[in-house]
């Protein structure tokens, strides 16, 4: 949080004199810079003396006694003293100039901020002066902030106030309906800005305001990141249960974009997209937030190549040790195997699995694992990755739904490396580095999946072709912009409050009851390569 940085020897000549004449380290002044401000103190007295960071950091203390290294020759002494005096004078002049500049700047700033109100109050105003300018409070606050920041770190403290009414927005067109709300494009009447307005679905829940909605607001308010959609405010309607989230509007979602494109993204574009998703996710995980519903339709893009993670209807805080969690999370096609097998202890790895699915989808434009139901999903997963064994996924047998799982006795010989590489044939155009990243993300064993941080450092993003700069990203006509968007045929995120189904996976490898009917077998015997 704070970096220590020595800022002293700005001037070579002075430094030489210092070393020559007075090597005592305790006379050296140092500056400890704390983010946003600086604390100066003399390390010999340990008494903290705060000052503006730009002003004379470096006073040469007057020396009373000469050190051992002092030159005895009075002539040399005199020359050095002369030099030092000159130096000192220059230094003072410079500091003076700097201070004047600083003062001028401050004055200009004050004048600008305050209009004709005269000098601002420096202290936080604690009384309400009725005849004060209404904006004055704000100005004083800003002033205070600026002044304080020069010494101590100020925490970002906002204010609270009641929700505004939704009538402050003019609804333009409907965009989409998700599991937890309806989204429409709207205009802020006072500013003219275009925003996305999401109405939360509050079906008369017996527990009051749905915890999912609360978590969505709470996590979005705290997750301020360039790759996370920006929640501006929450507004309310006339009825008690009309609640709308006001968010920045983005032209596309990735799902619609992929649907409309003739050709998939270029490798460099895939990297740009993926880096942004993982970057946003890395931030969320660092803030103890799990998203739990990552999929292409929840990734928004604008025409400046920026990607934002959206729809926090499933998101929640997690802890260490993890609290008890529901397994009914993540849209089926993006759901990690441990969730399908009924794990009630899981972590951020489930988001990484979804990233793997999104990666696959970016490559081919088609969702990677389109199961018809939970059982089918499991068989599709195993068809891709090969069935789990105690080597690749120790302990999977103890998961609740794994009991009914009958695995073929002739387990594929475990290929070298853990996690094993996915079959090359499924991703013919992917480089080796790309395949190793994909195999890591889609590792059956959650512990084998890379974290978001590790993902960002993966060599796939370092090799050619490099990620395309965002400014160079192609633009597309926006569906959300003007016209009603067609509903995607992705399955929806699981609804809260449903019972987690007791799944019978007996059919996963038999082509029997609940399993797959269309494709021949569950197919790892048919697997190529």
């Amino acid at each position, binding site marked *: 949080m704070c970096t220590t940085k020595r800022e002293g020897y700005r001037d070579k000549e002075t430094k030489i004199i210092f070393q020559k004449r007075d090597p005592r380290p305790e006379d050296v002044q140092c500056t400890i810079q*704390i*983010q*946003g401000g600086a*604390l100066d103190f003399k390390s010999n007295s*340990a*008494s*903290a003396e*705060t000052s503006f960071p730009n002003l004379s950091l470096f006073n040469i203390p007057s020396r009373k006694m000469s050190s051992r290294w002092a030159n005895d020759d009075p002539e040399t002494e005199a020359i050095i003293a002369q030099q030092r005096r000159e130096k000192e004078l220059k230094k003072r002049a410079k500091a003076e100039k700097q201070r004047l500049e600083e003062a001028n700047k401050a004055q200009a700033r004050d004048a600008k901020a305050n209009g004709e109100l005269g000098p601002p109050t420096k202290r*936080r*105003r*604690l*009384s*309400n002066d009725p005849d004060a300018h209404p904006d004055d*409070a704000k100005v004083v606050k800003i002033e205070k902030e600026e002044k304080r*920041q020069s*010494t*101590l*770190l*100020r*925490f*970002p*403290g*906002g*204010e*609270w*106030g*009641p*929700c505004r009414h939704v009538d402050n927005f003019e609804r333009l067109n409907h965009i989409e309906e998700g599991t937890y709300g309806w989204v429409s494009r709207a205009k802020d009447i006072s500013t003219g800005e275009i925003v996305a307005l999401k109405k939360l679905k509050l079906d008369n829940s*017996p*527990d*009051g*305001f749905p*915890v999912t909605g*609360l*978590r969505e*607001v*709470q996590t979005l*308010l*705290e997750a*301020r*990141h360039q790759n996370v959609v920006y929640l501006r*405010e*929450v507004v*309310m309607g006339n009825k*008690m*249960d009309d*609640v709308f989230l006001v968010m920045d509007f983005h032209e596309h979602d990735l799902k619609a974009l992929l649907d409309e494109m003739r050709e998939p993204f270029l490798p460099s574009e895939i990297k740009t997209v993926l880096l942004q998703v993982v970057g946003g996710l890395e931030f969320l995980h660092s*803030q103890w937030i799990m998203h739990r519903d990552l999929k292409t339709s929840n990734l928004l893009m604008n025409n400046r190549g920026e990607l934002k993670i959206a729809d926090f209807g499933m998101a929640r805080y997690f*802890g260490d040790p993890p*609290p008890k969690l529901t397994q009914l999370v993540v849209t089926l096609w993006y759901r990690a195997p441990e969730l399908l097998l009924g794990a009630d202890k899981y972590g951020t790895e489930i988001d990484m699995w979804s990233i793997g699915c999104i990666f696959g989808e970016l490559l081919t434009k088609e969702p990677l694992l389109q199961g018809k139901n939970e059982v089918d999903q499991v068989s599709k997963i195993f068809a891709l990755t090969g069935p789990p064994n105690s080597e690749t996924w120790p302990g999977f047998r103890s998961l609740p739904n794994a009991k009914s799982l009958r695995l073929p006795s002739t387990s594929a010989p475990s290929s070298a490396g853990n996690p094993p590489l996915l079959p090359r044939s499924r991703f013919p155009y992917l480089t080796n580095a790309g395949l190793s990243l994909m195999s890591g993300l889609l590792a059956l064993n959650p512990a084998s999946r890379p974290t978001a941080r590790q993902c960002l450092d993966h060599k796939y993003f370092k090799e050619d072709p490099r990620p395309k700069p965002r400014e160079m990203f192609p633009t597309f006509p926006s569906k959300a912009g003007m016209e009603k968007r067609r509903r995607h045929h992705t399955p929806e995120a699981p609804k809260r409050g449903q019972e987690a189904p007791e799944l019978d996976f007996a059919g996963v490898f038999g082509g029997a009851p609940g399993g797959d009917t269309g494709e021949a077998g569950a197919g790892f015997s048919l697997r190529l390569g």
Partner: protein
Amino acid sequence: MAPDGLKHLSNVLATPDQLSNSSSSIDNIPSDLETSIRCAGAQLTQAAGVLLHLSQDTIAQAIVIFTRFWLGADGGSLRIYSVKDVSAAALYLTAKLSFQPTSPRSVLNVYTFLLSQDASPLWFVRQSGAPETPPSPETYILSEGGYQSARLVLLRTETIILRTLGFDTHVALPHTIALTYLQTLGVTKPAVAQRVIQHLNAALLSPQLLYVTHQPNALAVAAIYLASREEEVKLVDGEWWEVFDVDREELGFLVVGMKSTEGFMRAEVSRWKNRAIPMVLDEVDAEIERRRMMEEGE
């Protein structure tokens, strides 16, 4: 510039306007009565949280939400919302967002017990304290019909709190920050840590509303300052609080505020020793009427 990454260590604070104008004062509730009721409500929340086996961080967050609700002209008025309902809803809401959610029924059962004139252990509800022999259960049990209507009020109040606070339910607490600071200062004596936590919990009841006027790091530093004095543990020389981004003036104010909480509470107890602090709307109206009569009588 303070980075956004510190958001989880900081809080929204009351504006001067919110501190000097409350909805209750607009509704002609004397400010001393408002302070008494708000403080009693905070104690009620604390007691209910303990009975519900919620952890102290959930309870503390609930008290902060409860406190924020009453501030400012846009806040809640004691003439419109019963302090007991807001306390219950704040606790229910906070628990719902925590790792230990609780049910409306448990919350309402506990509040019925705590507000029962015959069974309550709370000094501001029943002046004689908890009865020696347990009273008959009818005096503190919520009937089914009572539960159904109370549940509606609870859930409605929850939404009202959310709307009043603009759905910002984030509360950063100083407790864990204080422990980190203690370790940084090299203080290992458990008594100091305990005293710090005590000061921080007592400050939740402070009439100066310290939790909505100061950031958690400042509260933590003030509690450490006080506790180390009281436990006679010597801290490092120099103005160590500046390392934790608190200036001397703020520290001084907080130390005085925290030290005065005990005196305030004692004064409250003696001031209200003959009658209960009003917890519902009718009682508030009756109290104001009583004061009016007294004034006219004199």
